C-alpha cells in the first residue's frame, strides 16, 4: 500500500513537472517574433524515418 501511494505521488509530481516544462517552452516560443519560430522542420532520412 505504501509503495502504491508513493508511486502515485511520484507520477503526479512527474506530470506536474512535464506540464511546467511544456508551459515554459510555449512561453519561450511566444516571446519570439513569428518569423523566428522556425525550428520545427524534420528531415526525411534516406533509409526511412526522420530527424530534426
Amino acid at each position, binding site marked *: 500500500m505504501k509503495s502504491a501511494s508513493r508511486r502515485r505521488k511520484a507520477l503526479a509530481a512527474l506530470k506536474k513537472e512535464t506540464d511546467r516544462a511544456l508551459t515554459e517552452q510555449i512561453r519561450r516560443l511566444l516571446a519570439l517574433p513569428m518569423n523566428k519560430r*522556425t525550428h520545427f522542420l524534420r528531415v526525411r532520412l534516406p533509409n526511412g524515418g526522420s530527424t530534426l
Partner: protein
Amino acid sequence: MNGEAVIERVAAALNKCRLEAVLIGNAGAALQGAPVTTLDFDFMFRKTPANLRKLKRLARELNGCVLRPYYPVSSLYRLAVDESGLQLDFMSRIHGVRSFESLRSRASEVTFWGHRLLVASLQDIVASKRAAGRERDKAALVILQKTLDEKRKQKA
C-alpha cells in the same frame, strides 16, 4: 532543423507565382508558437483554373512536380521536390473550416526576408485538427490547445 531558409524559399516562390495560399497544419501551428514538429507544409488554397496554373508554375519554380496521390478520393495536390525532400500539400477543403475566405480573414501575415507568408490562426488549426479526428493528431492537439490557452492568457 531550422526551417527558415526553406520557408523563405517557399514564401518567395509563392509570392513570385502570385499564388494565394494559407499555411495550416503543424507548420502553421509551429509558427504560431506551438512546440510541434513536421516534415511537410500544408496549405489551403482556392481551387480555380488560374490557381492550378499557378501551382504548376510554383512546382517549376521549386524544381518539383505536382502529384495527386489520393485522386479521385481527395482533392489534395502534392508538390514534391525530390532533391531536397520538400513536400507541400495544397488542399481546397479542410475539416472544421467553412471557407478559404474565412480562414484568410483570420490569418497572420509573416515576412521572411521580405517575402510574405499567410499563416492560419491557431484557433483555426486546432478546429481543423479536432474536426478531422485523426489518431495521429490527438497528441499534438493537447499541445496546440495548451498553446492557444497560453496565448489567450497573455492577451487578457
